[in-house]
């Protein structure tokens, strides 16, 4: 039985709640990256399901530690994946989210991108939009977006794995050369109900600490972001919807009145 230790603390989990991704730079062993570097493009059930891939990637302590932190105990390990391989120059993909994007507070799936090669800017890196992971959009209606302020190209070293909330906006960036640009995509899923069982110092659940807004968000979107982050955090800590509503706010906490007038002596 594989025993996986969580690696994230409250602060790191709150960062994930806001941004929708974690990048683990160069964590997979070089020799294994080389073994994956010539993998066939397309469905990668055999590769991802192989004992070596499970050991070197899927249950790598740092990668699985993030998964354990965010998806709880006894999470489901991927049994397949897809190898996205680009060789020729091309203009890049359109912005999209995979499947049907969701706006809920839950976190039940982590979609991961593993890069067995170095990826430079000219190689057509995956580009992600931090904080876009809970936007209820038609994926085909964001295809005309070009550059977005705050977009992050995953220019990474070989052996890097990015773990994302399914639904984050992403695309393969423009590719200017003939270098192999390889990315193996796979997903972990939650089984256990959420509880705050990552690395904690105290059993007392801290309130969500506001993160800075994203540059691309309009006023109302930043309020929505904050509210969603608070409820996602509470959901991950195991609160019911009703309990979470006690913390419901979309403005900074210092703007919320907390003193009953009858307690004030003038």
């Amino acid at each position, binding site marked *: 039985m594989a025993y996986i230790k969580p690696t994230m603390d409250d602060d790191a989990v709150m960062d994930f709640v806001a941004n929708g991704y974690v990048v683990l730079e160069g964590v997979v062993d070089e020799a294994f990256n080389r073994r994956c570097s010539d993998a066939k493009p397309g469905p990668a059930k055999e590769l991802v399901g192989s004992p070596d891939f499970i050991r070197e990637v899927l249950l790598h302590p740092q990668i699985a530690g993030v998964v354990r932190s965010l998806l709880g105990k006894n999470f489901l390990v991927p049994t397949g994946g897809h190898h996205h391989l680009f060789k020729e120059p091309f*203009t890049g993909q359109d912005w999209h989210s995979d499947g049907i994007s969701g706006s809920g507070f839950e976190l039940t799936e982590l979609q991961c991108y593993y890069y067995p090669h170095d990826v430079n*800017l000219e190689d057509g890196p995956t580009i992600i939009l931090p904080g876009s992971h*809970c936007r*209820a959009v038609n994926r085909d209606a*964001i295809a005309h977006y070009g550059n977005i*302020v705050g*977009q992050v190209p995953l220019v990474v070293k070989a052996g890097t794995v990015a773990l994302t909330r399914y639904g984050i906006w992403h695309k393969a960036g423009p590719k200017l050369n003939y270098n192999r640009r390889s990315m193996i995509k796979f997903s972990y899923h939650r089984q256990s109900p959420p509880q705050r069982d990552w690395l904690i110092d105290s059993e007392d659940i801290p309130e969500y600490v506001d993160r800075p807004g994203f540059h*691309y*968000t309009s006023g109302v979107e930043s309020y929505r972001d904050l*509210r969603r982050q608070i409820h996602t955090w509470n959901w991950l800590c195991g609160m019911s919807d009703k309990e979470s509503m006690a913390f419901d706010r979309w403005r900074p906490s210092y703007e919320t009145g907390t003193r009953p007038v009858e307690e004030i002596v003038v």
Partner: protein
Amino acid sequence: MKTDVKRWIKESRTKLKTTPLDAADLDQLETLMKEPRQLILYLTATSTNMRSGVVSWALYDSTKAHEPTLLSDESPYNNVLDAVADGWRVAQFPVINLYEYKDLENDYVGFEFILEKWR
């Protein structure tokens, strides 16, 4: 276009009195007869105000081949009004009724202005 072609004919008649027309003259005529093509610029702003900041942009240029170019972090214009000052014409303003207000759910990025130029 018509005025330019008329001018070309007038100048060519004058030229023909002393010199025959050549390939360059015909190239010039061909250029003058080309129909202008539309360039489209999407600028996404943080509000419907034309002075609010641009957070996303995309140029669709029908006069050039679609080649890969590196991504950019710098918007071509700080706001929509700057683009208008640079000769872009607003083809479509954000249509407020299309921005269904869903109260608490996040959705698309910003407010979209569609601009055009003719080349």
